[in-house]
């Protein structure tokens, strides 16, 4: 098998808010009826989390699950376990109508950490990221500058961002520039 390499190989832009590439991350697009009991149980066994409510995500380290749309989840697992996870899904969902696709190497995973991380992202997305509106555990698919991206907060100063691999460099540079430009002081 070819040697998997992450988009920016762990590039870091240090500063008061640090932007870093999160390295290889196992990601599975999992579509189906989110109320399906088998789907629920395989989600729980793979990630340790229940199927999230609408617009939410749960994650802990490399594992997690995010609500992408009314019939789609994003399953996060350690990169090396992706193949086994897809096999586990195939086994659990046998006979059901579903789709599970390994998209790990089609994506870039970025991290934005620091005091005004919220503003670094808010400057780039047409989303309400006010502390009263967007909380830890909320998940949002939207735009960052000119590209599609999704993000969620793992704590009050940390955003995890995912986007397509082909625009990973753009997303990193965009977030790094936003971080470098400093806080707006709006929130």
């Amino acid at each position: 098998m070819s040697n998997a390499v992450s988009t920016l190989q762990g590039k870091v832009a240090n500063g008061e808010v640090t932007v870093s590439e999160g390295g290889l991350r196992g990601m599975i697009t999992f579509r189906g009826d989110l109320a399906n009991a088998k789907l629920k149980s395989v989600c729980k066994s793979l990630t340790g989390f229940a199927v999230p409510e609408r617009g939410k995500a749960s994650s802990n380290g490399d594992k997690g699950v995010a609500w992408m749309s009314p019939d789609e989840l994003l399953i996060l697992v350690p990169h090396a376990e992706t193949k086994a996870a897809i096999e586990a899904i195939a086994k659990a969902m046998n006979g059901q109508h579903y789709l599970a696709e390994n998209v790990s190497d089609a994506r870039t995973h970025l991290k934005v950490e620091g005091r005004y991380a919220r503003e670094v992202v808010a400057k780039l997305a047409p989303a309400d990221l006010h502390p009263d509106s967007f909380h830890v555990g909320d998940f949002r698919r939207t735009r960052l500058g000119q590209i599609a991206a999704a993000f969620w907060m793992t704590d009050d100063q940390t955003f995890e961002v995912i986007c397509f691999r082909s625009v990973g460099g753009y997303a990193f540079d965009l977030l790094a520039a936003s971080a470098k430009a400093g806080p707006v002081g709006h929130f």
Partner: protein
Amino acid sequence: MLTLHCPNCGVHADETDLHAEGEAHLKRFGPNSTDDDFHDYMFQRQNPKGVHFERWKHVYGCGKYFLAARCTATLEVFGTYAAQTHEPPQAIKDAITAKRPGWSWGDFS
């Protein structure tokens, strides 16, 4: 700035998160229909000044379609609702009537 509430994912989406997909509630005339019916389905649109029903796609978000009732003259949004409907829900019609008494659009009023 136009923001629409996506009934699929519950997000108040900015216009730039969305893609306009043309008029809502079109009845499709396909193979075996008459030329006139097909012509009207293909080309004839309401294009009103005022109350309008549109299809939108939450293209940067959940990727799903929904329908919106709004005013093309003022950008006022009366409401959004599921795309899987043949006509606007009564609550949407009531909201429009409250603001634009006597409105009509196609077969709806």
